[in-house]
């Protein structure tokens, strides 16, 4: 595209500067804090800290809730995307708009709306009382956090999944039916494996933000349920210990890197199929 290497480098400069100042320098600072104690000496204590009871509990709870909401998103997204990719075009524009719309709204606002719905005297309980049903005590429970996560992150599951499902040729599905496969067999043996790359990138795009969130857990967990994101936030903002916060962040990053490695693996194996 560019005639000379010099030209290319020139155009690369703004991004490199940006990446340097806002990605590499902060990462280096984090690593620095993570590997040192308050007097500036090298230590691994900030990492082993993660295995201390309260921190470890927060980490495990985070992983569990992130996993749960990822699985729920997956279960919700598959049937939806299968319907969207099936014939009815005019329906699909409306429904996909409905799913993209929440993306344009601030996630903090969305979560606060859920707070209002799930509160003790919130909209949900008022409706339940109207029908003389017992109250649902959802606010400040893991369930509330999962609801918030699913609501916030579902579009990130739907979009990649929709793209990969719509790439599957309808004739391939007909071929499976033709060869004797029922709807369910066609799904498990043909549609699922062919849409796996989309599902995997959807999983990444839901799992990582769900794992690191602290806003959703703060608003819907009421400060009683601490996720690893909340712990890290406290270490920094409430000013307890930046070294500990940095160490925990690094541990969280291991999860993210592993997840991204898995995604990359599926992406490359997918490309080989695409080549032809």
């Amino acid at each position: 595209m560019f005639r000379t290497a010099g030209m290319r480098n020139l155009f690369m400069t703004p991004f490199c500067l940006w990446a340097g100042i806002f990605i590499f320098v902060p990462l280096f600072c984090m690593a620095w804090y993570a590997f040192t104690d308050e007097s500036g000496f090298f230590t691994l204590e900030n990492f082993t800290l993660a295995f201390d009871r309260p921190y470890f509990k927060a980490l495990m709870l985070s992983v569990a809730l992130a996993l749960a909401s990822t699985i729920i998103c997956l279960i919700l997204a598959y049937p939806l995307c299968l319907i969207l990719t099936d014939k009815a075009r005019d329906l699909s524009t409306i429904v996909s708009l409905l799913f993209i719309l929440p993306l344009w709204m601030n996630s903090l606002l969305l979560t606060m709306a859920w707070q209002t719905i799930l509160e003790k005297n919130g909209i949900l309980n008022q409706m339940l009382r109207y029908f003389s049903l017992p109250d649902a005590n959802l606010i400040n429970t893991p369930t509330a956090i999962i609801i918030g996560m699913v609501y916030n992150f579902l579009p990130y599951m739907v979009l990649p999944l929709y793209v990969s499902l719509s790439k599957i040729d309808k004739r391939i599905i007909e071929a499976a039916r033709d060869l004797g496969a029922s709807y369910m067999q066609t799904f498990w043996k043909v549609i699922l494996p062919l849409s796996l790359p989309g599902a995997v990138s959807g999983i990444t795009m839901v799992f990582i933000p769900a794992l690191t969130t602290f806003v959703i857990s703060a608003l819907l967990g009421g400060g009683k349920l601490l996720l690893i994101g909340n712990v890290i936030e406290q270490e920094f903002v409430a000013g307890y210990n930046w070294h500990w916060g940095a160490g925990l962040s690094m541990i969280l990053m291991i999860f993210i890197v592993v997840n991204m490695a898995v995604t990359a693996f599926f992406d490359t194996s997918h490309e080989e199929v695409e080549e032809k």
Partner: protein
Amino acid sequence: MKRETIRLENIAKSFGKLTVLDEVELTIYESEFITLLGPSGCGKTTMLRIIGGFERPDSGRVIFNGRDITELPPNRRPINTVFQKYSLFSHMNVEENIAFGLRIAGKDEGYIRSKINYALKLVNLEGSEKYDVTKLSGGQQQRIAIARAIVNEPKILLLDEPLSALDLKLRRNMRSELVRINRETGITFVFVTHDQEEALSMSDRIVVMNQGYIQQIGTPEQVYNEPENAFVADFIGDSNIIDGIMVRDKLVKIFGREHACEDTGFPPECPVDVQIRPEDITLGEPSEDSFNGIVKKVVFWGMSYDIIVEADGFEWLVQSIHGREVGEEVSITFDPYNIQIMSKPQSEDEEAAQDV
């Protein structure tokens, strides 16, 4: 007489306001190679999809071995399909593709193994079991698609323009391959194409279709030599189709001149379509008692020349192994048995059905 295998009874199908099939009646016999031939949009693919169970007819019934299967989904029909673009499963290798139907049916691995070997031998692709299907050529993919369908021992194999994506040489090869597979397996082949050459060279019978109606059903020789209407005459091979009037049995009047023919049974003074194949016309010296004209255009095709001769305001297409000069005066002669008389469409409805 051959045994009937599948029968379409008064099938109609429309998509929205567009009528794709109307009043379709067709009986297909065991082990035959039958071709649905027609221009695009004539309803041939829809008919195939109705047989396969991918479309449900608006009215009419599909009878298989005396049983009504109109409502049966594709996975429960003893019918398999070879799709136009092969539609192989890209996430499986060659043998997994072929084994797909057998595994669904719950066959044991020993049986599947022997079937894969048999099918790969049948399509001349032995030893390709572990190949990645996406790395195969178009012709090879098509063979795998055939193998994948045939291992299930269908009673009927549907082929939806399976050769259209292949290059010319490969297509010629595959034609005789398909006929051989049809003979070897005894499976009924229902083949869809818009290529008349394919239809003529491969089929036991041809169903010529246009605008949702069946125009003629017959052997390749019948539809070529004795087309029932001007559409069939025009669609299959090249034709000169001329308005004529039947004077009496065995005598037709074209361009004001009476000419002997062999057709009988038309009422006197009945307007008809007269078809004369370009290869049946002989060019000679102009004379009193023949159609005389002037050569307008000559195209050399290698094997023969296409010569356009204008006579009586009509442009005759003549095929000859001898060339002519443009501007030359020639006579046009043909034998009575080379004339095919076809009745003109009677009503407007029939006219639409023929779309000449």
